[in-house]
């Protein structure tokens, strides 16, 4: 058609004009003293360690702040010194005394004092933001926390607690990001309306970590700048986390050298990048587990343990892990992720439609059954859900996928207004109790746990869970958690499917990037280019 070629010419002319200007825009070079990370930062809400509880912010805390103690980068269960050089448990088993190094300095130049520790921990409890429940585990409340953290002398600070837990557990709570120590002098100067500086810390930092926040623009970029006061001065001047919401674009940026690191790519993007020169794919196991949550109170069928059992045989575990999420997850069927002490690694279940049908039939469950299945409107959940939809259908269980925003799904979970849902769990601190307290803990529906959302009342398992957290002997404790996992694995309204595996694409120029098992263990301080 003649008209078409004319139109093409016309458009061509417009383009040449607009794009002539762009000729010369360089591709493929990132500044030598800055690390450019392409990822989504749309989730970021607050960079205040007492509030931030999203992936992006949690991943930044280890670079901005230090805690009294820290999880080992390679082996998360090992706890090492950070701001505290040493610590000692009290004779009663309900207190810890920390000796500060006395040498640490905040980015502002202020030294780290016991007052900063007291301020940081008490404000975290009093602000009562999302992660506050972690410190609440110690029995700390806004009323009693002032007495619980006290200064002994200029380098010693003592923590006491009322909850029935031991010092080992208390220490693992203190490795969580909420236990980060902020600069009391700086933050108090920015406080408004008794907010303990929360409003200011949302977009600024006041820590002793290797970096400080240079600028943060929501939905656009987080720019970190080397903290000149840091004892262990970082190799790079800047780290720029650039928001690239679209995974395909993220992939292209790292492929063309416009970004040094790309995070959160899908399996297809990783596949496309695998053999490209100049980049490598780093696979880091993560502590995230994906599971199906069944509401046992929704109706008689869903409350029937036979349905729970059948569901275990209706998941195409290998199809999901191998074909759909290639390398991004591995099959995992217990509530503790690999890397946590006592995690079960066996996988007793696999896709077996005939077996599932028999289990359903023996229990007198009539098929077809229609089940509402609410799912996060995001990947990989929608992909996993569609695979489940196909495999459950083979046994006559029709899953009606209903995508929703996170809060909607949480709300339905809390109020029990759902039938079945696909969820994930990331431990909040490096201790098996973080998971056990969710999955094997529901005495009488009085606290919000995953078991409560499933309508699964389990006083005996709850007793075991609470006994496990009290246990001081490490080996005995591990055995207790193994036993709990076996019971939950065998029969419960949870079907554990996968453990996550973070795939980070890194340019060959980048050296010494470290990422650990838990969500917060992302370290930029040793990175070189």
């Amino acid at each position, binding site marked *: 058609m003649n*008209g078409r070629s004319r139109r093409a010419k016309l458009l061509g002319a417009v383009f040449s004009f607009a794009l002539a200007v762009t000729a010369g*825009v360089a591709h493929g070079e990132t500044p030598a003293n800055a690390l450019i990370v392409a990822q989504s930062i749309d989730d970021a809400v607050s960079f205040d360690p007492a509030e931030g509880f999203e992936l992006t912010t949690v991943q930044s805390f280890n670079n901005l702040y230090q805690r009294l103690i820290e999880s080992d980068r390679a082996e998360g269960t090992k706890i090492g010194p950070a701001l505290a050089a040493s610590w000692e448990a009290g004779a009663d088993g309900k207190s810890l005394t920390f000796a500060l190094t006395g040498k640490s300095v905040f980015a502002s130049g202020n030294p780290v004092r016991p007052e900063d520790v007291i301020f940081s921990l008490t404000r975290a409890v009093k602000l*009562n933001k999302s*992660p506050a*429940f972690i410190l609440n585990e110690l029995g700390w409340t806004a009323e009693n926390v002032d007495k619980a953290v006290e200064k002994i002398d200029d380098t010693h600070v003592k923590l006491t607690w009322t909850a029935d837990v031991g010092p080992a557990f208390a220490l693992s709570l203190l490795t969580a990001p909420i236990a980060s120590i902020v600069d009391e002098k700086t933050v108090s100067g920015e406080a408004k309306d008794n907010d303990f500086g929360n409003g200011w810390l949302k977009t600024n930092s006041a820590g002793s970590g290797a970096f400080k926040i240079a600028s943060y623009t929501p939905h656009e970029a987080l720019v970190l700048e080397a903290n000149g006061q840091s004892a262990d001065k970082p190799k790079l001047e800047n780290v720029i986390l650039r928001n690239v919401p679209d995974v395909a674009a993220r992939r*292209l*940026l790292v492929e063309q050298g*416009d970004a040094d690191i790309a995070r959160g790519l899908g399996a297809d993007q990783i596949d496309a990048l695998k053999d490209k020169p100049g980049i490598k794919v780093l696979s880091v196991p993560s502590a995230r587990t994906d599971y199906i949550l069944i509401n046992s109170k929704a109706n008689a069928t869903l409350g029937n343990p036979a349905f729970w059992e059948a569901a275990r045989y209706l998941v195409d575990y290998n199809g999901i892990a191998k074909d759909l999420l290639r390398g991004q997850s591995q099959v995992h069927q217990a509530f503790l992720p690999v890397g946590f002490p006592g995690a079960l690694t066996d996988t007793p279940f696999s896709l077996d439609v005939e077996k599932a049908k028999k289990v359903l039939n023996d229990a007198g469950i009539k098929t077809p059954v229609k089940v509402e299945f609410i799912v996060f409107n995001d990947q990989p959940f929608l992909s996993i859900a569609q695979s489940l939809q196909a495999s459950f259908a083979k046994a006559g269980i029709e899953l009606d996928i209903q995508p929703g*925003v996170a809060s909607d799904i949480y709300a339905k979970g809390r109020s029990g207004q759902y039938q079945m849902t696909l969820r994930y769990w990331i431990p909040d601190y490096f201790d098996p109790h973080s998971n056990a307290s969710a999955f094997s803990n529901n005495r009488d529906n009085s606290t919000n746990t995953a078991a409560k959302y499933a309508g699964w009342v389990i006083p005996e398992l709850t007793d075991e869970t609470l006994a496990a957290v009290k246990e001081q002997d490490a080996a005995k404790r591990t055995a207790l958690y193994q036993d709990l996992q076996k019971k939950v694995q065998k029969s419960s309204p949870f079907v554990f499917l996968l453990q996550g595996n973070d795939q980070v694409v890194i340019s060959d120029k980048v050296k010494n990037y470290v990422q650990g098992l838990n969500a917060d263990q992302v370290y930029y301080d040793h990175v070189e280019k």
Partner: protein
Amino acid sequence: MQKAVLRSLPEPHNSRQPRWRELSLLGPLSKWLMSFAMTLLGLALVTFAMTRLSPIDPALQMVGDHASQSTYQAARLELGLDQPLPVQFLRYLQQAVSGNFGQSISTGQPVASDIARTFPATLELATAAIIIGSLIGLTLGIAAAMRQGGLIDAIARFVSLFGYSVPIFWLGLLMLLLFYARLHWAPGPGRLDVMFQYTVKPVTGFALIDTWMSGKAGAFRDALAHLALPAIVLAFHALAGISRLTRASILSELGQEYVLTARAKGASLSRVVFVHILPNIAGTLLTVIALAYASLLEGAVLTETVFAWPGIGRYLTTAMFSGDMPAILGATLVVGSCFVLLNALTDVAVARIHKGQAR
């Protein structure tokens, strides 16, 4: 029949039932302001009602699922969700009037400052698009009318039909694929290269102006290059309506007596069109361009999503996906107000032009 041409645009108000024009000619500015305020109030009411009818719990969205019950209760109090609905609405209105739209759940920042940051990006994009769209649209429309039934007319018709029919997000994707991924002509998504993003001080919020003022030629070129692709895609949408209406208005004027007289006196076609007709239909053209502009502000939602353009449209979509009610409410209200304001101002301007011509 002009209305029909504008079908994907909102109804022009200058046609059969003059509303604002009538009011403004009557004189009292207050009356005009009243109608404007009522429309805004209606918009606020509808958006507020939507957010409160929603099954999404903003407090839970804020604290997440691991948080304790007491944290959740504190968040509810903070958001004022414990108040009765009419009280919440009045409080919302009161605060909105003073420019306070509450705090965004997904960014943790005041919605007003989020909007102040993102809106210039959208304005920049929509303005660039309307400039490109009007230039091409007017040229195409005039050329088509002067060669009615000819090749250019056919091309113009095809282009405008295509512009009306093409899903803009899809066009944007294909453009990115071709010009960014394959040909490497255009830079990727975003507004400014990371090299410049933190060296150029944001003063006005408009990347072109900021980079120009910074005196860095490279930065300015980079900003322009980032703007080109999304602006062209968005312009396509506007171009369709503009070229069509230009053509139709010129054609309808060609049959008018004053034109026939001018032609009889020996004026050339181009002289008639440029000297006699265009000034006469300026009001109509202004309306269509202004309405296209308003619809671009709103159409930017999809384009910004595709190009990761950090404007209010993308802000709104991210807010939608995280159930961020204060942000959805605030952004809809602000874009909606601009939309309403543009509509209203256009009517006033058109009325002025007509009045001037009547004299």
